[in-house]
């Protein structure tokens, strides 16, 4: 099996949306026993603030 | 053309359904051919809240079990149709629907007492039509869930309730404590229960003694005291103490009490809790001088309450008709004893709640109704449609109301002519056609 699981998270007015973390959880669940990796994408001008917030166990990149 | 012919010629199922109860059995068959043409149509009719009893009876003998079960679940299904459904080879689901039906005859329910299906048993336990002997038969093997239902059945007797009390959990005992057939022994035990829920339910028991209620007035739990206040007879009332009870729940209950002495009412009129004052304003036993004070309460809902109080004097109503808050004025406009000059004045205002209330008022003169019925707001127009005293002249403008529900409700209006109703038989909305046909069927033909 190839192909990673990409999660596109969202933010508004400088805050990551709570639903983003739920979506990461869905990705981790989907990853399950497969050998797929999970990458989280933050689309932002200054993404640094969000990177820490989405750095969760199970996320690979 | 008769309605029957019209229904058959047009093939309009809604006309046919409305006409069905009014024609001879032989004529019904031709209507049923139209109505029962598809299994989908039959299922829809069987579940329809508007389906006349005659149709439901016909459908009770249908071959399709899906149709029969819908008939059994339809609250309008008459006892005879339920009897027919219970005969035959009824499924458990069908029998449990019958067992739960409020129109089922006690005799039919009694026949089901030995059945083991949990759904049937639960339905029988809860049906107020289930006879005592059937309830008794259900008791020995009853589960805790069934006992909870049994404890709420109005036909349970003291012996059953004793059994339930002894075997049940706190919720069963609370239910027993509220049961009018509980008897003095059980009620006494309930009074001494350590659980406030049981004591509160006891206070709400319509058969509880006044002595017990008086005792419960000193209960440490505010909710128990409040429940006791609600059921106290005037003689055993302790108004002064209750009017200054630390709990607003108790004071609110007191403010609703039907025999509130003037001194207690006066005290409550100054209560900080606006709900106390709201309840006081609505209490028909509140003395005139207190109502006058409440009529200038800073809380508009309190003033509204005064205007809705049937003991409110006409001069006070006139004052409230000038209130700055429309909802207070709307309350005055709704009153059947409102002087016509007030209705005239309020009928010219712009607030939709005020003019709707005027539109519904039986005393409003036709000239005002004729104006209100042309309002752009469908809800306001409907106020006149729902005014049974509105003359036809006031209804003319809504014969073609764009809001279908308004036309459907209009079809029920006694001032409509036969010609109006016959026009409505061609309405694009099925609901309007059905109601118009139904109104025609129920109206005596003019000579």
């Amino acid at each position, binding site marked *: 099996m190839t192909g990673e699981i990409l999660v596109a998270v969202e933010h508004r007015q400088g805050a990551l949306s709570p639903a983003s973390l739920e979506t990461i959880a869905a990705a981790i669940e989907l990853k399950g026993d497969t050998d797929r990796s999970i990458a989280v994408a933050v689309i932002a001008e200054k993404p640094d603030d969000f990177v820490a917030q989405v750095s969760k166990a199970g996320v690979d990149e | 053309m008769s309605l029957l012919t019209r229904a058959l010629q047009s093939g309009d199922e809604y006309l046919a359904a409305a006409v069905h109860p009014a024609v001879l059995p032989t004529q019904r068959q031709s209507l049923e051919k139209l109505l029962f043409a598809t299994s989908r149509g039959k299922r829809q009719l069987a579940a329809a809240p508007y389906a006349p009893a005659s149709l439901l009876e016909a459908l009770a003998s249908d071959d399709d079990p899906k149709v029969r079960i819908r008939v059994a679940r339809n609250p309008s299904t008459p006892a005879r149709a339920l009897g027919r459904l219970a005969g035959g080879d009824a499924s458990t689901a069908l029998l449990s629907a019958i067992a739960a039906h409020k129109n089922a005859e006690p005799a039919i329910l009694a026949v089901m007492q030995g059945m083991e299906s949990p759904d049937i048993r639960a339905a029988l336990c809860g049906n107020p039509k289930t006879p005592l002997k059937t309830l008794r038969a259900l008791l020995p093997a009853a589960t805790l869930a069934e006992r909870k239902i049994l404890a709420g059945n109005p036909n349970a007797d003291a012996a059953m309730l004793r059994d339930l009390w002894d075997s049940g959990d706190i919720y069963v005992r609370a*239910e027993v404590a509220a049961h009018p057939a509980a008897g003095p022994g059980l009620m006494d035990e309930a009074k001494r229960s350590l659980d406030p829920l049981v004591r509160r339910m006891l206070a709400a028991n319509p058969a509880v003694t006044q002595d017990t209620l008086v005792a419960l007035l000193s209960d440490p739990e505010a909710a128990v005291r409040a429940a006791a206040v609600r059921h106290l007879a005037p003689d055993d009332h302790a108004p002064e103490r209750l009017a200054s009870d630390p709990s607003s729940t108790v004071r609110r209950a007191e403010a609703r009490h039907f025999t509130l002495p003037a001194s207690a009412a006066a005290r409550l009129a100054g209560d900080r809790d606006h709900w106390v004052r709201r309840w006081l304003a609505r209490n028909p036993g509140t003395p005139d001088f207190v109502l006058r004070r409440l009529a200038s309460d800073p809380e508009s809902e309190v003033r509204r309450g005064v205007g809705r109080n049937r003991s409110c004097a006409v001069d006070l109503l006139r004052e409230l008709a000038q209130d700055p808050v429309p909802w207070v004025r709307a309350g005055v406009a709704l009153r059947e004893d409102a002087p016509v000059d007030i209705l005239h004045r309020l009928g010219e205002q712009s607030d939709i709640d005020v003019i709707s209330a005027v539109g519904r008022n039986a005393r409003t003169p036709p000239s005002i109704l004729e104006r209100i019925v042309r309002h752009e707001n469908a809800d306001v127009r409907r106020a006149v449609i729902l005014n049974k005293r509105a003359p036809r002249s006031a209804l003319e403008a809504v014969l073609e109301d764009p809001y279908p529900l308004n036309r459907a409700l209009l079809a029920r209006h006694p001032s409509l002519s036969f010609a109006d109703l016959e026009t409505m038989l061609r309405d694009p909305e099925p609901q309007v056609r059905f109601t118009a046909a139904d109104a025609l069927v129920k109206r005596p033909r003019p000579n």
Partner: protein
Amino acid sequence: MKILVPVKQISVVDEDFELRADGKDVDPDYLDTEANEWDDYSYEAALEIMEAADGDVEVVPVTVGPDDAEDVLRRCLAKGGDRGIRVWDDDLVDATPAAIAKVLAKVVAKEQPDLVFTGTLSSDRSFAQTGVSLAAELGWPHVAVVTGIDWKPGDPKATLKRELEGGLIEEVSVECPAVLTIQLGINTPRYASLRGVKQAKEKPVQEWSLADLGLTGAELAAGASFRVRRMYKPETGRAELIEGTTAEQAARLAAIINELRGAA
């Protein structure tokens, strides 16, 4: 100037329904049809612009659906507009939103509207995909979940309100032509007058097949964005019936209310 308004006849399942033999949808005998609620709002939004423009704007409802879907067009036309468009082909049974978007894109190509208003979603399948997919197929700008529109014929941009989570409103502008998906509550949809209902029966409805639009069923099937494996009744789908005595039911209700409020 023209506003195209795609509308849909939706399906509502009857109680104790049965599944189709292939298990991939409900047996049509247990489906009732009605107009999609969201489309009342999108059509009203278009009519309001048409009326304010005093003759400069045409509003055209379009639907992708079988014969009886013509009802939803007539329902629109009874409120306003002079003609409707219905596209159908048996290959469109079970079409995914991506396929519907491709069909609508061809209609847009023929009709050349300035704006397209769709409902935010339709309440039978609740994809909330068609409007935005249509815009993507057209390469048009698009804004979803619109709760306010400020646009006059000739304006190069429309100023919009979008409703976000938590009641927050965002004001945005969009270059035209554009596709907007319209949210419930943007306006108060009107009811058609009896005269309007009568007149609507006479208004022309153009009927187009896939071939008329230069599409084939095979092409659309290849573009399907998913394939249905099966449908089933979920265990959690029915209402949880709260049992017990009144006091017990209330205690459970109180817990549910607190939980729902806490989770929100």
